[in-house]
């Protein structure tokens, strides 16, 4: 089912164009430095995972990249310039979109409306043309609705299209959140523990969905996940963090056998 451009995937990781690079990122809350000295690069159309025990600072890195926190030190280079500290809605328009650890949907709005809101930036939001229902306005609304239908089919939520997002099952809500991110044509998708709380079949379905997003939509994915089987299977490159510090980086194979990673996760055998 791989339809993506063959060369991109198999060529050596180094000479592929970098989508995002982080240089010694540091984030301090008062005295505590949640994240310190983080460096990594994410290549185009790559699935890059960040793993580590709870409290390692993974989500803080995410929040810095997506503009919710202003990093105390360090640079985040994306599309050629440093985006550290820019507000998150500007970054979203530049193509960086994220999901959240606990799903943040517009609960009292219907599934379709969630997908329509996400396309706000692309729509014709001129007040007057909307009021007088001009043809230009109707065309843009129709286009938005058809794109929403496409994504509803893709994440198998078509039959609950008119149900309120708050009444969906957990798995459905997860899929809707991802669809809502994808509908904005992102270049970089940040997934914050997408598999959390899913049962095994749903995790497999998620695996297929993420691969499909990378191939068909050509989006680069930055992933935080605790489900090791999913991470090892799906990611091209992994960064391991502990207490805000990086302790390893490399392909799933390298990371799996790295002694420090094993020790961090399984705890050292007490001599």
């Amino acid at each position, binding site marked *: 089912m791989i339809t993506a451009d063959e060369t991109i995937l198999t060529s050596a990781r180094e000479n592929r164009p970098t989508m995002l690079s982080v240089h010694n990122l540091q984030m301090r809350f008062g005295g505590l430095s949640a994240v310190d000295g983080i460096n990594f690069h994410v290549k185009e159309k790559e699935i890059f995972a960040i793993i580590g025990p709870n409290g390692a600072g993974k989500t803080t890195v995410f929040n810095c990249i997506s503009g919710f926190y202003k990093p105390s030190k360090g640079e985040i280079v994306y599309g050629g310039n440093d985006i550290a500290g820019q507000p998150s809605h500007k970054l979203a328009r530049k193509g960086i979109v*994220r999901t959240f650890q606990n799903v943040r949907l517009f609960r009292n709005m*219907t599934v379709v409306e969630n997908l329509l809101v996400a396309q706000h930036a692309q729509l014709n939001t001129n*007040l007057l043309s909307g*009021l007088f229902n001009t043809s230009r306005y109707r065309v843009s609304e129709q286009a938005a*609705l058809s794109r*929403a239908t496409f994504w509803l089919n893709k994440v198998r939520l*078509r039959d609950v299209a*008119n149900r309120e997002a708050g009444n969906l099952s957990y798995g459905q809500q997860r899929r809707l959140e991802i669809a809502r991110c994808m509908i904005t044509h992102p270049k970089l998708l940040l997934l914050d523990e997408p598999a959390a709380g899913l049962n095994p079949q749903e995790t497999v379905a998620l695996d297929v969905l993420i691969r499909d997003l990378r191939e068909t939509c050509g989006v680069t994915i930055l992933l935080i996940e605790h489900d090791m089987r999913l991470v090892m299977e799906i990611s091209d490159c992994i960064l391991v963090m502990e207490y805000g510090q990086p302790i390893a980086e490399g392909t799933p194979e390298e990371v799996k056998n790295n002694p420090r990673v094993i020790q961090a996760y399984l705890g050292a055998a007490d001599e």
Partner: protein
Amino acid sequence: MRGETGMHVVVKDAVIAALVTALLTIPLIGLRLNVESTGLVLRTEMFWPLTAILVVFFGRLILPFIRRPTLPVKIPTEKIIPKIAEYRKVWLGALLVFAVTLPFTPPGGSMLTGLTMAMIYMLLALGLNIVVGYAGLLDLGHAAFYAIGAYTYALLNQYYGLSFWQALPLAGIAAGFFGIVLGFPVLRLRGDYLAIVTLGFGEIVRLLLNNWDSLTGGPDGITNISKPTLFGWEITRRARGEGETLWQFLGVDFVNTYQLIALYFIGLLLVVVAVIVIDRLSKMPVGRAWEALREDEIACRSLGLSPTMIKLTAFSLGSMFAGFAGAFYAAYLGSVTPDSFAFIESAIILSIVVLGGMGSQRGVLLAALTLTLLPEFARDFAEYRMLIFGLVMVLMMIWRPQGLWPASRRRVELPTS
């Protein structure tokens, strides 16, 4: 403790309840202060307190035996979205015809002043519904924009002789502008703090209007404001300027109720236009953005919607409609004074929006009608009017917090691509 069914516990309960009722009723209801010519005097009327105490005492005695166990946890009911009422258009048409003929029917005729005030409160509540209902921004100072609209028309009419229809758009724009002025500084605030700042803003506007004698005429306000014209005709008894009154045109001798009917129609026209415009707005991207902001501002930011723009559009459009309502109120009453825009007005408008059902236009219209006409029905026992008004607000929040007629989500038919 309640679990025991020993009689002594039940009796103890009943005695305590009776004692509390006694403390609640005897001092205030039983003993009545009054000012007679000889000064302060205390009259006693113990009938009501005693009946209350007895009712509570025996009520508590038999309560445990008849009380059925209530569910400890409220299970959220699934809100099924009804299909679009097929004959929505017919239904709306019927409502409009009813509204048009109402003033001519005897009951309608007698409540004309109440009906016109209901139109004004509908306009105000529709505006506030954008800010509170759609965008979820708690605004306790909406009366400030109501005042700005009223004074804009009053001043333009007094100093530059502008007619109502010329000044109406300016009043809306002025109120909308101050909506943005209030909107900017409060962008970062959330929930209660936003409410408090808007409350402060409302009070400041009222105090400025009251103290700025040279411009606003201070506490006396501005009088002699000209009435609106209907299709170019004056509607007062005698044409003020050189124009011709509608009644001369119709060859009818003037009765004051004709003028009130004409004013009612102008109010109805404004409300109908407002409902159509706001309904359109809520279906447009900007309307969806408001609701998204209410649901989850952080998710909005992560999807590229700028909260600043959403809040400012909500505030400015909401206050614009309050400006229109203010201008019409000034024209209807013929005079404007600062203390008709006190905090209590903002509280009443907010109650109408919440009682009607936040985010539901039809609910807000219904609530505005009931809350303004309720005092009309209570005309004979006038002093109990506000007492009932306050009680209705409390009881409604307990029995129907979602409002009289909550909004239902719109169903969208998906194209079968």
